[in-house]
């Protein structure tokens, strides 16, 4: 340990009546080459120079926690919509349907067989399945009810085509051939539905990202106001720090550390709450998985889970909130100190 010795008379305060005056350990004028007693191990409490655990600090932690919770939920929701959209697109894009409409001038069964034959000749088509009549009728049951005799109704027949993973360009030619050979048949590649679902999913994603951005801006503003309040409340401390030799960089760093701590506390609490809520909703969704409502929800939103990457995004949002808290407080303090000087 290197320290300069105090070559001063130690007896000056010996007879002071104040508490804490301790017996002289040295003779007057003796140089303190080394302290005689062992130094306490817990001298420093690592107390920040700017007080952290204030009422305003605790309030800011709660505000940051709520904002992080909302931002994390929004990010999780956007991620879930993105995953569901991906699942829809994957499922729908690999499937096509040939619809053969009844025509009194034509034999629908012959048209159906011809369309199946044409479809099987296309390399991009991996599987062709003509839907039986009773199965086609069952598709109408949700709208028309069960137990009806649909024999008199001109119900179209459907052929489901499962496509290869790598779709070639032969589908356009197939569509034209089908229209020419079987005029009552149309090829539906579900593009309209994919486009609509994608638009809806993208809207949800953009809204989610927008909410996250707004929440981050709100968090930044809350921290900026809290920093200004803390600076105003610590004006005396700041002046003392200046006068004992602290530069603006040091003071800004102290405030930044304080607000990063608050941001981490709030962001951690909010992010943790969001993870719990998402996990709880996932658990509830799996518990209700046998019900029709859950099936519909799952069809709409996919599986109610965000995966490890989703939890990573939630943690990232919390970390970004903490980083914003530190950065905004630093900028605010520098601006405030410039104004002070």
């Amino acid at each position, binding site marked *: *340990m*290197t*320290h*300069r*010795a*105090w*070559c*001063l*008379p*130690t007896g*000056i*305060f*010996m*007879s*002071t*009546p*104040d*508490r*804490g*005056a*301790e017996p002289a*350990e040295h003779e007057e004028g003796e140089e*303190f080459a*080394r*302290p005689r007693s062992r*130094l*306490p191990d817990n*001298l*420093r*409490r690592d*107390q920040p*120079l700017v*007080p952290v655990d204030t009422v305003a600090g605790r309030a800011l932690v709660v505000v940051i926690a709520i904002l992080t919770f909302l931002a994390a939920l929004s990010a999780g929701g956007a991620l879930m919509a993105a995953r569901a959209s991906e699942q829809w697109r994957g499922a729908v894009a690999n499937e096509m349907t040939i619809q053969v409409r009844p025509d009194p001038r034509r034999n629908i069964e012959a048209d159906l067989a011809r369309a199946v034959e044409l479809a099987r000749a296309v390399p991009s088509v991996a599987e062709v399945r003509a839907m039986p009549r009773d199965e086609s009728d069952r598709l109408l049951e949700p709208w028309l009810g069960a137990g009806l005799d649909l024999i008199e109704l001109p119900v179209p027949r459907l052929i489901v085509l499962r496509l290869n993973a790598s779709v070639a360009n032969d589908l356009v030619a197939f569509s034209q051939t089908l229209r020419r050979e079987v005029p009552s048949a149309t090829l539906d590649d579900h593009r309209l539905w994919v486009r609509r679902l994608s638009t809806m999913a993208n809207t949800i994603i953009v809204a989610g990202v927008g909410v996250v951005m707004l929440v981050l801006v709100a968090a930044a503003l809350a921290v900026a106001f809290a920093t200004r309040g803390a600076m105003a409340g610590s004006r*005396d*401390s700041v*002046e*003392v*720090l*200046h*006068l*004992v*030799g*602290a*530069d*603006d960089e*040091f003071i800004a760093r102290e405030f930044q550390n304080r607000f990063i701590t608050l941001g981490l506390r709030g962001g951690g609490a909010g992010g943790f709450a969001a993870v719990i809520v998402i996990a709880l909703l996932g658990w509830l969704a799996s518990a209700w998985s046998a019900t029709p409502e859950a099936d519909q929800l799952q069809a709409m939103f996919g599986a109610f889970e965000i995966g490890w990457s989703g939890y990573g995004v939630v943690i990232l949002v919390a970390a970004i909130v903490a980083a914003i808290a530190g950065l905004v407080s630093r900028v605010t303090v520098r601006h405030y100190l410039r104004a002070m*000087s």
Partner: protein
Amino acid sequence: MVRFENVGLRYGMGPEVLKDINFSIAPRSFQYLTGPSGAGKTTLIRLILMALKPTRGLVHLFGQDVSRLEATTLTDFRRKMGVVFQDFRLLDHLTVYENVALPLRVLGKEEAGYRAEVVELLRWVGLGERMHAVPSVLSGGEKQRAAIARALISRPQLLLADEPTGNVDPGLGRRLLRLFMELQTLGTAVVIATHDLALMELYDAPRLVLADGHLHVDA
């Protein structure tokens, strides 16, 4: 070390509170800054500390005109000065040890490097058993000594003490004065702001006397 030439100060559009101040402080010197309450002693100390900017005149610190100083140089100059405030200005949420170590901490020094030195100084000023206490539980005399220890810990070239005996009994006041005299012999220039005539009679030193905003040197 410090030189004021025709320095004046006014707050806003008000009258000048300090007028045509001329004086200098030599290295290793000892002087009193005196005058009645409200004469501007604290204001003059704040001018030396560069916590206030004069409205006119020239202030030279450590051989440089302070009006042309960069912010970093300003900080360097402040690190050469120790100050004992009239109201101590200890940070209430820090312990006595942490308050005294503050000038070293702001320099970015490692705590292990200055721990022994701070403890030693605290023992020397009689606060060895109070180093864990926060200022709110200290007596006036203990706060005074903690403030003095904080001013001394970085071995300043210039010590400015604003009414350092204003809150202590005469006996402790005499001991404090003796301490400042010892510091001067160790090479620190000392300025004691006081209106305590009895204290000034204990040790004869030049007096910077402030009255009606003007300053004259009573050698």
